[in-house]
């Protein structure tokens, strides 16, 4: 087989895989729209969506229409965007930091977001004019800037950058605890926990628009640097010798992942596991090349989080489990299978 043939063969394989995954993603979103507490007939679900697209104009119960369109569909799509974004960030950070344990929150972003959120929720910073999400986003950026300063714009090396992230997480978690314990009551502490554990309960269409934009931009930027990321695997010097502006690429990618993660945390709280595990699972499936890995991460992460959200909504009647609990509960068995099979394959 010539290199050319192999190249096309691989591309076709990847294309087929992505096609199937995209169909699966659409099915998952359809399931997310169809499954819920309120029993709604299948045709109503279908028409509720087609009505909104302007394809049909069938008279439906407005409550059904609203639950399907404003609540379930927007929620499933936001879950898909967040899953895609988190998996993408995880893959980038694992490559940049050359650390298998790196995940979107490794640079202290979620700790910073929680400090921002409690400053708004408990201390009343901005006295109502600043939303919780804006506060969380600002907190996340503070933490990222702190890490960037400590690690000299990530030039200090992967190990030091991770340490700077740990320091930032500790600092901001301590600040959060300080605020909660000096100013909050038991109920507020619970509210903060509920908010931070991650939930898609508060998302509607505006969140989807924002999530879609940031995820698409983040994805395009990362794909643009996919070849450079491949080179990073062999170390900074090797990458530099290939003519890659190592420092610049690293700073850009760190900034993109931080902004993306901050946007996601501020919308839905911190959702663990997706960003850590989906990139590994994707690597087992398509290998380490970033041109293949990043699109795979995006669709797999999206499918995974949409499914996890469905589970979180139906496992307890009339109550929602924090999504982070479900991602770990669903994700660990799923990941165990992949890990086991990859070991056998060796």
């Amino acid at each position: 087989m010539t290199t050319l043939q192999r190249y096309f063969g691989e591309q076709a394989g990847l294309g087929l895989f992505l096609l199937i995954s995209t169909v699966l993603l659409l099915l998952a979103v359809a399931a997310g729209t169809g499954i819920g507490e309120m029993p709604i007939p299948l045709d109503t679900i279908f028409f509720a969506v087609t009505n909104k697209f302007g394809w049909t104009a069938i008279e439906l119960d407005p409550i059904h229409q609203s639950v399907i369109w404003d609540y379930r569909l927007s929620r499933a799509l936001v879950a898909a965007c967040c899953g895609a974004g988190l998996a993408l960030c995880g893959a980038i950070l694992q490559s940049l930091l050359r650390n298998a344990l790196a995940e979107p929150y490794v640079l202290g972003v979620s700790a910073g977001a929680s400090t921002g959120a409690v400053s708004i929720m408990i201390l009343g910073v901005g006295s109502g004019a600043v939303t919780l999400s804006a506060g969380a986003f600002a907190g996340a950026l503070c933490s990222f800037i702190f890490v960037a300063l400590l690690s000299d714009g990530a030039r200090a090396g992967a190990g030091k950058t991770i340490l700077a992230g740990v320091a930032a997480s500790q600092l901001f978690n301590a600040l959060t605890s300080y605020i909660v314990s000096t100013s909050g009551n038991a109920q507020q502490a619970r509210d903060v926990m509920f908010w931070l554990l991650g939930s898609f309960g508060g998302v509607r269409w505006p969140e989807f628009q924002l999530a879609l934009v940031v995820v698409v931009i983040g994805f395009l930027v990362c794909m643009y640097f996919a070849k450079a990321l491949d080179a990073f695997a062999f170390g900074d010097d090797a990458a530099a010798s290939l003519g890659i502006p190592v420092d610049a690429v690293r700073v850009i990618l760190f900034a993109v992942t931080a902004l993306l993660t901050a946007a996601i945390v501020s919308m839905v709280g911190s959702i663990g596991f997706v960003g850590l595990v989906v990139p590994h699972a994707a690597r087992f499936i398509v290998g380490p090349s970033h041109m293949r890995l990043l699109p795979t991460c995006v669709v797999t992460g999206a499918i995974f989080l949409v499914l996890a959200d469905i589970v979180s909504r139906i496992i307890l009647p009339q109550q929602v489990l924090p999504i982070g609990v479900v991602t770990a509960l669903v994700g660990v068995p799923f990941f165990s299978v992949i890990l086991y099979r990859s070991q056998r394959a060796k």
Partner: protein
Amino acid sequence: MFSVKSVSALCGLMLPLALSLTPAQAAATVYPLQLTNCGVELTFEKAPERAVTLGQNSAEILLLLGLEDSMAGTAFWPSEILPELAEANEKVKRLSQEIPTLESILAERPDFVAAQLAHLLGPESKVAKREDFANLGINSYVSPTLCTANHDTGDVHGARAELWNMDQLYQEIDELSQIFDVQDRGQALIADFKAREAALRARVSDETADLSYAFWFSSPSPEADAYLGGKNGSSGFIADLLGGHNVIQTEVEWPTVSWEGIMAANPDVIVVGQVALTRGWELDNAENKIAFLKADPAISQLEAVKQNRLVVMDAQAMNPTIRTIYGAEQVAAQLEELGLFK
């Protein structure tokens, strides 16, 4: 012929009857009713028939207004229902003891949603935003204590600059009674609460000792620092109503205080909260609290503990709710037995 006792018992029986039979003092609501609630314009074409409440206080207000037949569901119950409302409350579906989902609320096909707490309904809520209901033509009402204009003094935040009082609760009762066209009952309820408030205040005289109170809500464990009710919260209001003051002088709503700090403050009376949450905190229970106070070698030396000036109160009264006035009465009755209040 009649003993004093039987007459007063008769009066007690008559009271609810009297309340409902009082000739209409308040005007009937004219629909469509327009109301501004926390900056949102509401229009009611008729009285709601399928109300859902989010938060115990909202539910208890509607039940006190006798509206159980107009309620489709309730959610979020951190404490036991007020005993006299238990029977009426049985008729209303409890969607969730905890935080409910939007779908479970909508499944009841509500025509009105009333909420007590910001995390149950509002821009930051993970449950629902007011627009979610407005888009479906469902009016929503949030407790006036949550209005943005009141952020400086509201209970959503950590500190309160002025002593809490019942005014916003009265406003809430008044507005809800207008919405449901039960203004007679609303005014009667407000009058009843005001009379009870005044009755307690009237018992305070120059001779009443200015007692210092510590309001112990709960502690995660015996080793942990205690959650106390702060100076300007409803705990402070209760102390003030009884002619005393809160021994805690910080403006923080729910300070966490070490036992050394409590001993240094040396309260005359310790009010121990009975918390009905099922979160497994041993010291949520008032009896366990008292046993702890008496058993601890250092704390048991406090004058209040030695003289058994320990008073039990439903902890829900330490939250600014209708239960606050019930809590004040509960404390007053026990102080009377201790000879500390006339």
